[in-house]
């Protein structure tokens, strides 16, 4: 099935087309000129070699023969891109992931100038993560420099990269809900409201936020008619843009999110597991992964990623989700240090997973829409989902069943200390459906239970279940 990617429509010189086997990019005559300038420079080889941009090659335009009206000025050349194993979006990333994406964006801009090129936009939606490694995917963004032109994407960079990072670094405001709620990011006049007078001295606030906002407000007052007058911008030399990008790179690199730097909250120490339980669980996961050899594994409620790592030994790809930003941040840092490209850590609330967003609800896809897993690990999870989030046990199992995934699920009984702690905050007899017999019945309705093992402590049961 071949279809133009619905989220790729804004750039009239470049359009992405997705087929069952490949990802293509159609280029207009002008887009082709820019591509040829890019591919003629040593930059393309260097950047694809280092993995900073996605693998790209020219292919015969006939692969898209069946599609018409892809671009207003017609299709002159077609490129093919490597696939990204699992698409993710900045509202699922951690602080450091957004920061590293911003640095990559700027590094590419700096390198491009030396080759007489520039990047026409600056949005984190042009960066994808392969495991813990950021890769730039929008080849169409590279274009020949127009002399005298300033950094066109400066505003977009501020709205989608800089302000979210500043919010988290300076005010510990989680940026993900903001990014998810606003597809174009945060406007200068809104960003400034978050900062106090004292904050003006902090990195990035005075020039890029405060001054930016003040100029915006003044322009808004004078209205759209003043646009013509504003077109008379001073001429800018490419070397100056490069210096500006380097300056921004220094700024972004120095931002720190303090709460995210404290490592493990002591989960491994303070949890209620016995060592025997832990060991048995690890073996179970290892045995299952080794027998299944899944292409894609989801570890829901991954915490420190211990089980993601075990699964990764026998999975092509693992996506590790957790609700807590700081937890995923610590996992990301650890994966990044190892250079791990197999495990992708994401911040996600299982009870409210990423929805479809954007124009016609097609620009950003739902979580499941991006790749249902072959194997799903739901360890130390269902009690939180059911008791804390109040999602009926049957509903959760139905959700897993609808994905068609093989489920490795741990059921902590009502006698388990953690479950008792969660129930202690509720009225007597709360969550009656959260009960061993009921759980197994609901599971059997939707899955064939292949393995069932009670952990040594007697409080938890592991199941390996296949969708019916």
């Amino acid at each position, binding site marked *: 099935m071949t279809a133009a990617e619905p989220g790729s429509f804004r750039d009239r010189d470049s359009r992405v087309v997705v087929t069952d086997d490949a990802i293509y990019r159609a280029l207009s005559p002008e887009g082709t000129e820019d591509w040829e300038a890019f591919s003629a420079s040593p930059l393309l080889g260097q950047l694809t070699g280092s993995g900073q941009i996605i693998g790209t090659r020219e292919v015969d335009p006939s692969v898209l023969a069946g599609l018409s009206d892809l671009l207003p000025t017609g299709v002159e050349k077609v490129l093919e891109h490597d696939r990204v194993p699992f698409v993710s979006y900045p509202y699922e990333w951690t602080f450091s992931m957004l920061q590293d994406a911003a640095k990559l964006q700027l590094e590419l801009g700096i390198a491009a100038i030396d080759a007489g090129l520039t990047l026409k936009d600056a949005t984190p939606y042009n960066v994808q993560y392969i495991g813990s490694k950021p890769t730039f995917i929008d080849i169409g963004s590279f274009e020949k420099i127009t002399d005298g032109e300033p950094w*066109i994407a400066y505003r977009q960079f501020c709205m989608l990269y800089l302000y979210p990072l500043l919010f988290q670094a300076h005010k510990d405001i989680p940026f993900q809900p903001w990014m998810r709620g606003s597809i174009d990011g945060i406007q200068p006049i809104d960003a400034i409201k978050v900062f106090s007078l004292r904050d003006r001295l902090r990195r990035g606030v005075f020039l890029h936020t405060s001054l*930016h906002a003040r100029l915006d407000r003044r322009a808004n007052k004078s209205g759209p008619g003043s646009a013509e007058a504003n077109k008379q911008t*001073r001429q800018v030399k490419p070397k100056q843009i490069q210096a*500006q990008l380097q300056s921004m790179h220094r700024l972004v690199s120095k931002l720190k999110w303090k709460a995210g730097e404290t490592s493990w909250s002591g989960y491994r120490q303070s949890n209620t597991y016995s060592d025997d339980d832990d060991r048995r669980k690890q073996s179970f996961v290892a045995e299952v992964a080794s027998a299944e050899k899944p292409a894609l594994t989801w570890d829901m409620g991954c915490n420190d990623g211990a089980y993601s790592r075990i699964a990764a030994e026998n999975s092509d790809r693992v996506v590790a989700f957790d609700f807590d930003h700081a937890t995923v941040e610590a996992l990301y840092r650890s994966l990044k240090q190892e250079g791990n490209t197999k495990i992708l850590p994401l911040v996600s609330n299982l009870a409210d997973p990423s929805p479809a967003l954007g124009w016609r609800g097609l620009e950003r896809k739902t979580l499941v829409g991006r790749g249902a897993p072959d194997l799903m690990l739901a360890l130390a999870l269902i009690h939180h989902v059911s008791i804390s989030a109040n999602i009926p046990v049957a509903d959760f199992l139905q959700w897993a069943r609808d994905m068609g995934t093989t489920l490795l699920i741990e059921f902590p009984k009502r006698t388990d200390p953690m479950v008792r702690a969660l129930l202690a905050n509720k009225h007597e007899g709360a969550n009656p459906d959260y009960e061993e017999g009921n759980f197994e019945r609901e599971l059997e309705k939707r899955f064939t239970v292949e393995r069932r093992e009670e952990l040594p402590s007697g409080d938890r049961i592991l199941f390996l279940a296949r969708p019916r």
Partner: protein
Amino acid sequence: MEIFAYLDPGSVSAALAAVLAGIAGIGAAFRTFGSNLKNKLMFWKKDEPAPEAAATATPADAPEDKPSEQ
């Protein structure tokens, strides 16, 4: 000068970007001047690569500059 781009730079932001580029350019010039001077004076030290050089290298962390860099 016409700006051909699908992305609206925001005329205000483009103006600000142009000004900041100018400032950054001066800052970079000072840094290069300072580093050239340092190399000339301290001739016994190995030459450092210019900050704008390597295509894929992360720009070297320069000594902290004037307040306008914030």
